[in-house]
Structures are given as structure tokens and as C-alpha cells.
């Protein structure tokens, strides 16, 4: 076996230029594939972070009927006690109680349908980083009533500025229509344009008063200190509050979950396509190598090399040729992705608006797809094995006495 591998290795270097070219092709193919995977992973990781740390958090607690009907009456009573209890659980980093009301925003120049969230500013900052997203104003100030924080998209749409007045109309807990005037205390910007246009934040005290809800909320968002703790925390909450609806981010944002699952598949399909293209290059190279050595192969069979050994010799050559290029491709990919992962790729000038429209940041930080690496290496090995079949069978079909005449 050692002699076979040694022969295979030396055979590869008979035509150095040809072998190096195919190794470079394999390396570049891997770089292309892994870079695309890294890009996808970076985008999705960023999106996932946004979903968890800016939008829905890891877990949410609702009245079982609230998500279905969105009626104010389906609220969680004794919200402050509930929040304190949840905050004391293991792995819980921050908790924010939200009062939710679909409503209409009106100004002197226009109107828009909005989702009103009544929040405790400090808690909401800890869960969704509301304060960090402010690009204008300082947000909610103590001892001031009827302040509102709106998104930049909404502000542009209805021509609102800092300190502008607006009227919000919504229904209270008894289904009465309530209208109240608010002053813009801050404008926030997020990577999710649709949310930026829809979500407006009020102080929970103001909204609860107007909706006649005392110490109640519709939604409790729970942010954990690590993603892996989600299942345990979810089970714990389900045990503690069997009558409430506990949902994780995958249930709250199924489109994100679907995106992660399908993008993994797309990445693999992409790698497979690249490897298929490379496979034909490898087959071509190995066929040339076999045809150039027709006489030698005939001689080996004449001397007594059996078909299995001959097959293994060509197979080893193909596998070594392929796998020699692979480490360079992996190293190059890692260097490229790590570098761009630190500096980021700004695509705002190309498709920033489109990315934002789907809730993605236009500054992408690719991440090396470590989790997919075993699968990628498996695909490379399969490519090598499949590519070896054609030249191996070609070698097996040679008839020694005819091969030696060439």
C-alpha cells in the first residue's frame, strides 16, 4: 500500500504544471464555495442576532389567545410580579414587559398604521437595545408624559421630526377608541426597514393608563445570556406558567428559522455545483495522465499488477491530487473570511435598501462556516472518489499486449 501511495504521489508530479493548475482550481473552487457559505452565515448570524437582540428576544410570554386575536383584553395581569419572577430564573439576562396595541398614527400631513409598544424604557433598552438605536433625540425622559419614539422610516413617511406632535388612536381594554397626542422624543434606526416603519414606542405608564390596564401587559420578552440555554429556559417557563403561551424566537420569527434552514441547503447545493464543475476538470486531467501512460500501465498489468491494485493506483492519484489542493483552499478561505469578517463588507451602495427591506444589515461580516466544514470536506472526498472512477475504469479496460505496442 505504501508503495502504491508513493507511486501515486510521484505520478502526480510527472506533469507539474498540469497538476498545479488543477490543484489551484480545486483550491479556488473551495474558496468560492466557502466564501459564499461564510457570507450567508455572516448575513444569517447578523439577522439572527437582530431577531433575538433587537426584535423578539429569545422567548416571549403571552396570554394564550393574544397572538391569535390581538385584543387588548388578553393581557397578563400582575405584570411586575411576573417580570420579577422571570428575571430571577437562571440564564435570564433581561426581561421587558410590553403593552401592545395596533393603532393609527396621524399628523397634520399624513397618517399610517402602526404597532404601538408600551415599554419600561430601561427594561426595553436591556432587551432590544432601543436606546442604542436612537439616531435623534435622547428617548424617554423621566417625569415627562406622552413621549413617543418612532422609526426613521416612519418619520420620513409622515414627515415627522424630533419634538413633532402626533396623534395615536387605538382601542382600550374595553374596546373603546382612545386618541391621545404625543411628542416625538426620539427617532431610532434599525436594520429592519418594515419594523422601523411600523413600530412606535411609548412609555408603558402612558399606554397602560390610556388603555385602562393597571400593572398588566400583553407580552413579556425574555433575553437570555446565551443562546444554548433557550430550550431549558423555555421548559422552565412552561413548567412555571402552564396556562400561558411560551414561544421561542423560532416560533415567533418562523421566516428567520426557514431562512437559516434553506440557506444551509442552498450553500451545500452551491458547493456541490462548484465541485461538479471541478470534477470534470479532475477527470480530464486524470484521463490525460492515464492515456499518457498507456504503455506503462500495460506493462504493469503484464508484470502482474491485478485490476484492484491498478484501480487503487489511479484512485490514489486522483484522491491525492484533489486533497492536495483542498488544504490550500481551506487556508485561503479562512484567511479571506477572517479578514473580511473583521473589516466587514459594506454593500449599502449596491443593495443596501433591498437588504434593509428584508431586515438585513448592509454591512456583512462573513463567518467561517466551521459547522459546515465536515460536510464540505465530505463533498470534496466524494468528488475525488467519483472523479477517479472514469480514469480508473479507463485504465482497467486497457489490454496489456495492445497497450505495450503504443
Amino acid at each position: 500500500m505504501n508503495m502504491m501511495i508513493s507511486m501515486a504521489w510521484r505520478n502526480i508530479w510527472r506533469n507539474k504544471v498540469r497538476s498545479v493548475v488543477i490543484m489551484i482550481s480545486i483550491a479556488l473552487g473551495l474558496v468560492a464555495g466557502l466564501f459564499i457559505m461564510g457570507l450567508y452565515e455572516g448575513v444569517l448570524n447578523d439577522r439572527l442576532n437582530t431577531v433575538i437582540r433587537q426584535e423578539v428576544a429569545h422567548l416571549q410570554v403571552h396570554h394564550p389567545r393574544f397572538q391569535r386575536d390581538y385584543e387588548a383584553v388578553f393581557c397578563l395581569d400582575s405584570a411586575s410580579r411576573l417580570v420579577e419572577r422571570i428575571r430571577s430564573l437562571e440564564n435570564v439576562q433581561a426581561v421587558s414587559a410590553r403593552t401592545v396595541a395596533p393603532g393609527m398614527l396621524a399628523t397634520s400631513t399624513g397618517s399610517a398604521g402602526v404597532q404601538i409598544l408600551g415599554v419600561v424604557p430601561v427594561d426595553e433598552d436591556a432587551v432590544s437595545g432601543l436606546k442604542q438605536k436612537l439616531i435623534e433625540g435622547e428617548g424617554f425622559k423621566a417625569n415627562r408624559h406622552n413621549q413617543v419614539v418612532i422609526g426613521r422610516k416612519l418619520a420620513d413617511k409622515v414627515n415627522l421630526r424630533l419634538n413633532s406632535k402626533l396623534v395615536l388612536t387605538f382601542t382600550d381594554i374595553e374596546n373603546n377608541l382612545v386618541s391621545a397626542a404625543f411628542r416625538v422624543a426620539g427617532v431610532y434606526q434599525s436594520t429592519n426597514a418594515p419594523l422601523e416603519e411600523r413600530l412606535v414606542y411609548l412609555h408603558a405608564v402612558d399606554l397602560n393608563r390610556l388603555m385602562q390596564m393597571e400593572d398588566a401587559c400583553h407580552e413579556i420578552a425574555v433575553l437570555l445570556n446565551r443562546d444554548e440555554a433557550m430550550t431549558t429556559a423555555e421548559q422552565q417557563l412552561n413548567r412555571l406558567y402552564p396556562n400561558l403561551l411560551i414561544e421561542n424566537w423560532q416560533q415567533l420569527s418562523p421566516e428567520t428559522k426557514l431562512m437559516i434552514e434553506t440557506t444551509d441547503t442552498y450553500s451545500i447545493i452551491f458547493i456541490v455545483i462548484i465541485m461538479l464543475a471541478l470534477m470534470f476538470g479532475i477527470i480530464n486531467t486524470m484521463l490525460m495522465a492515464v492515456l499518457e501512460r498507456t504503455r506503462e500501465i500495460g506493462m504493469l498489468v503484464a508484470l502482474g499488477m491485478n485490476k484492484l491494485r491498478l484501480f487503487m493506483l489511479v484512485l490514489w492519484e486522483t484522491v491525492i491530487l484533489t486533497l492536495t489542493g483542498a488544504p490550500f483552499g481551506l487556508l485561503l478561505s479562512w484567511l479571506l473570511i477572517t479578514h473580511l469578517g473583521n473589516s466587514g463588507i459594506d454593500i449599502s451602495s449596491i443593495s443596501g435598501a433591498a437588504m434593509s427591506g428584508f431586515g438585513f444589515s448592509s454591512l456583512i461580516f462573513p463567518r467561517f462556516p466551521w459547522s459546515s466544514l465536515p460536510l464540505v470536506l465530505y463533498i470534496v472526498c466524494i468528488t475525488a472518489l467519483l472523479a477517479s472512477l472514469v480514469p480508473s475504469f479507463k485504465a482497467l479496460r486497457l489490454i496489456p499486449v495492445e497497450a505495450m505496442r503504443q
Partner: protein
Amino acid sequence: MDTIIDAHQVTKTYNPKAIPVVAVNDVHMHIERGEFTALVGPSGSGKTTLLNLIGGLDKPDTGSIVIHGTDITRLSANQLIDFRLRNIGFVFQAFNLIPVLSARENVELIMQLQRAPKAEIRKRAAILFDQIGLTDKMDTRPAQLSGGQQQRVAVARALASRPQVVLADEPTANLDSKSASNLLDIMSKLNREENMTFIFSTHDQRVIERARRVITLVDGKIASDTARVDTSHRHDVQTNPE
């Protein structure tokens, strides 16, 4: 005497459906162990074809070839490969050493294919290189060896598996006189010392003069079969039935 090759009514025709060329025509031949035989004849007389048939590289259309008790015409392709590995040594006109292996590795390859123990492989290779006088060139690649040296390595490779028969197709054709003479000395010495059977096709008068039996082929048939006791005495032992 111990018969090592018994060829009976062997015929081989190329292009049987188009323009048939009878390369070997009803050949009967017996070779005893330890013979040093030359197959001679003009180009196209069937020397190489007969060697290929005896070596199991080609199959005859009719007849049988029994080598050391095995009728090789009845063996499958895979069985033939194994038979060649264990019973036949080949020396080719163009040396045909594997360029990416050193001289020693070329010789050892055959024994590795036979799955011989490593220590035995090393020992046998050392002995053979000593016999061919190339101990100092064992780790040299074929491209760095002269034609004569390459052919000596090819002889060592042919002998490595301790075959029943060594078949050499025009072994001196690409060699100068000195190298050819040197090679013949070695082959003749190995023939005597290891009692190994050598059959070689040749046009080379120097080789013919060193052979102890000369079989002449004309148009695929054995025209004469002459054995010599030594270089000064010859006598016919058998002629072709026709």
C-alpha cells in the same frame, strides 16, 4: 528432464474476419527447465507473438500452452495476471522501467505485488543488484541510468519474483555492443546459478551465439530448432513437423 513449457498446436491469427494474418501457425514446442533459448527469425515471423502467447499476454486461437503443469489458455484474465506475477518474468526491448521509482523500487515492486515479507524483499533486491553489478545504483531513478544499466535492472526485476520462465523480447536491441555483451553475461550467469529458464526473441547475432538452443521461426512456423552443447558444437534435436 523437467518440462517447463509445453506448447501444442498453437495458432494465432490477427484480423480473422478482415485480412487474416497468421502470426503463429501450428507451433509445437517443449522447453526444459534451465534452458537458454533464442527465438530467431525475420521481422513478422511471429517471435514476439509467440513470446506473448507463452507469457499469457495474449491467447491463442487454438492449441494449448502448459507452463509448469498449468494450461494457461484455460485461465481467466484475472488468473492469468496472478499466474504471470508468480511464474513469468518479462524483459522488454524498451526496458519499460517505471520512471518515478528508483531502480531498487522497480525491482521491489514485483515482490510487493506478490506480498512477500519486507525483509525478504530487501534481501532479494540486494542480492539481485549484486548479481547485476549495480549495487551502487540502487537508489537511482531510471532516467539517470544508461540503457545497459536500465536493461540490467529490468533483468533483476524479471528475476525478482523467482519466476519459472524469463521471457525477453529483443533485450539487446537498444544496447551498444559492450552493454549487450555485459547483459548477456549476466543473463547467462543467472541462468546457470539460479537454473532459471530464459527464452528471448532476437535478431542479434551475439545473442544467438550465446544461446544454447536456437528456434527459428519463419511465417509463424518453426523452421528449425537447434541445440548446442557449447559454442563450437551444434546438433539438431527437433524440427518442425512440416
